[in-house]
């Protein structure tokens, strides 16, 4: 819960940064309302921090830590996480990391502006300065950024250990591995991917920090180091990271779709296997971010093939979701709209990813707005649509209060429309060759960006409206929180079968009065004659999991 609140606050910061540089892109050189004039270096710093914040301080806490801490214990039918103290420690380390990052805006020289990937030489100050002043270098934007990221990794590692141990050890009686809700599976797979890919980057970040503050030459070719080493260490983590963000959101979808289609989830076990396959593949594709870094073309081919292969498990998961909807009696509630919106938008993001996976096309599109648009079409639905779907779905359970559905739908349509308005046209700008790190094309007189400035302006206006429409959500949230609790109405409003809906709402400390016992899988819907036309997991009786779900 604290993670999600922290995530929302940081999303505000990230959104404000986005507003500033979007405004600058559409109206270069002009003074920005609420901010003032944006210097080119500041532009770079803001773009960098926007990326950092949205991935590490919004996506990670909301999707992994927030959902994990809230959902894992109650969905597997236990009282709390395995290590509550570790959990608290993890949150406070995360909190400090956010403060360190925000501090970096106010040190001399400003925040780091070399892109969220932090490639040397720009991020390794030791290049120019072999004997840096230790304290001055430590309190530079670069070092603070590295420190903040490192602290955040420590926090997430601790959280991940907690998730996996809780899931392995504290499941309710009868809650076998293949009776766990998909979201629990996916949160665990995501934690494992994170834990096993982040290690080399922790070492690499340590080396980068030393390059800055002590003046070592790990990434300095003059002294036998290699800047490409950082790219490998970074992307060995950086690529799996997108699946760390994607899997929990897909898990949320797997919970929501069967409830509102009133059908068992199509292909429960294959979905889990596909996610495991994607987890293995995810650590084998990282160099597709480095096609223009001078890697061996034979290696590039390998990584191209790997990248295109990884679309198979995810296509499998998405098709299973659509097959779940097929022939269901669909109820277009607010969470369901967000879930379906997610699928629609992610389809665009996923398909453009196929283009970029091929090294021949990537060499052309690298670092253009095509890439930027591609990953916003994947990450925005993932982080925000996934998050809002989860909020509208579980809010009644965890607060005992209800959100306003009409405002929820308005929020959805505004977000959906303005998100597409912001990004879709920028695909064309990207194909035209607009570079992601150039803030003002008017200084490049040979490049004619004039025809594309209209798209820039439309995009910026939509982006501002997109940010403004999030206030609908905040208004809805706060007015709903001010209501009185209604435990009866919010006990199981969606007629869902998983364990969290059998607890009181909001769940008391310890979640359950009596630990539930589990008799079947999580998605037994459309059972004729049963109350709510579904079999809750904790009601004694027959189980259909073997003939229904496979």
């Amino acid at each position, binding site marked *: 819960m604290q993670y999600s609140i922290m995530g929302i606050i940081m999303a505000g910061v990230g959104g404000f940064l986005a507003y500033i540089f979007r405004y600058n892109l559409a109206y270069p050189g002009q003074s920005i309302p609420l901010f003032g004039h944006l210097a080119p270096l500041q532009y770079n710093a803001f773009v960098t921090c926007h990326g950092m914040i949205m991935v590490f301080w919004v996506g990670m806490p909301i999707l992994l830590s927030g959902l994990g801490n809230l959902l894992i214990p109650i969905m597997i039918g236990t009282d709390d996480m395995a290590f509550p103290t570790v959990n608290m420690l993890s949150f406070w380390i995360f909190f400090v990391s956010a403060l360190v990052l925000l501090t970096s805006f106010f040190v001399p020289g400003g925040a780091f502006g070399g892109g969220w990937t932090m490639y040397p030489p720009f991020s390794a100050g030791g290049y120019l300065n072999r004997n840096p002043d230790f304290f001055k270098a430590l309190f530079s934007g670069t070092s603070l950024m590295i420190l903040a990221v490192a602290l955040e990794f420590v926090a997430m590692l601790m959280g991940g250990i907690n998730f996996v*141990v809780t899931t392995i050890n504290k499941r309710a*009686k009868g809650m076998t591995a293949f009776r766990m809700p998909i979201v629990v599976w996916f949160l665990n797979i995501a934690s494992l991917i994170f834990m096993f890919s982040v*290690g080399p980057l922790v070492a690499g970040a*340590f080396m980068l920090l030393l390059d800055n503050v002590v003046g*070592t030459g790990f990434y300095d070719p003059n002294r036998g180091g290699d800047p490409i080493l950082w790219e490998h260490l970074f992307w060995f983590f950086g690529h799996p990271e997108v699946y760390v963000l994607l899997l929990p959101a897909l898990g949320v979808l797997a919970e929501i779709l069967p409830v509102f289609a009133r059908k068992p989830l199509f292909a429960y076990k294959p979905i889990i296997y596909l996610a495991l396959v994607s987890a293995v593949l995810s650590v084998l594709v990282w160099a597709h971010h480095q096609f223009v870094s001078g890697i061996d073309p034979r290696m590039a081919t390998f990584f191209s093939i790997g990248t295109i292969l990884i679309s198979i498990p995810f296509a499998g998961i998405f098709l299973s979701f659509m097959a779940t909807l097929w022939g269901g009696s669909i109820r277009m509630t607010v969470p369901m709209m967000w879930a379906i919106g997610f699928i629609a938008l992610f389809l665009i993001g996923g398909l453009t990813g196929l283009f970029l996976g091929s090294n021949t096309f990537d060499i052309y599109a690298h670092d253009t707005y095509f890439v930027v648009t591609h990953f916003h079409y994947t990450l925005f639905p993932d982080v925000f649509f996934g998050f809002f779907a989860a909020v509208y779905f579980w809010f009644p359970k965890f607060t005992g209060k209800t959100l306003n559905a009409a405002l929820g739908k308005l929020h959805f349509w505004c977000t959906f429309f303005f998100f597409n308005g912001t990004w879709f046209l920028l695909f064309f700008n990207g194909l035209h060759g607009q570079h992601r790190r150039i803030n003002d094309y008017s200084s490049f007189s040979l490049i004619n960006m004039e025809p594309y400035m209209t798209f820039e302006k439309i995009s910026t206006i939509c982006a501002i409206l997109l940010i403004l429409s999030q206030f609908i959500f905040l208004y809805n949230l706060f007015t709903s929180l001010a209501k009185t609790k209604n435990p009866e109405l919010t006990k199981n409003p969606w007629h869902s079968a998983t364990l969290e809906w059998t607890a009181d709402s909001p769940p008391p400390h310890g979640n359950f009065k009596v630990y539930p016992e589990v008799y079947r899988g999580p998605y037994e819907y459309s059972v004729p004659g049963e109350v709510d036309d579904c079999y809750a997991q904790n009601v004694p009786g027959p189980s259909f999991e073997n003939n229904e779900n496979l």
Partner: protein
Amino acid sequence: MSTKQQHLTLSENKIPEGRLGLWILIAGELVIFGGLIMSYLLHRLRYPQWSEMAAHTSTFIGALNTVVLLCSSYTVVRAHEAAQKLDVAKATRWMTCTVLGGLIFLIDKSVEYTHEIQEGFTFTSPSLQHSGDYVNSLFWSYYYIMTGLHSLHVIAGMVVMIIIMVQIKKGKNLHRVELAGMYWHMVDLIWIFLFPLLYIAK
């Protein structure tokens, strides 16, 4: 939490929680060192000149430290054995041996660092120009970061052991002796990799 209901919960495959968590932590630590070792190896293969630098490390002290760490791993196993028999005094004795082992390791390491720094091989090694080749100096950066990070783990292990010794004196958390032992074995194992890579391969 406080309301420990009739304990229906908890899965059938009951591995103690602490042990399970520690296994995952160890796996994570190994990946961190794995990344470092991999980076070092790739550079080492690219620059055969590094062997000249590796010749300056003291194989004798390295070997001595290997023996010390292996012995301290043995003593922590004895501590675990004693803890299983609920023999607190014996467990404390054996753990003290392990902490002493760690201390000897750190003393050796400081002696070694002192020698190397006196010879001019520092973390950043600007004085290496006399060999006419900057490329070599990175060996020392890797040497210090790998052994330094490992030494930090040794210190962490010692601190943890002292905390656990205080706890078992009060008669609680006897099972944590095993966890400290597991962590110590990991520290030991990493050294087994570092020793040949940095000292023997010349």
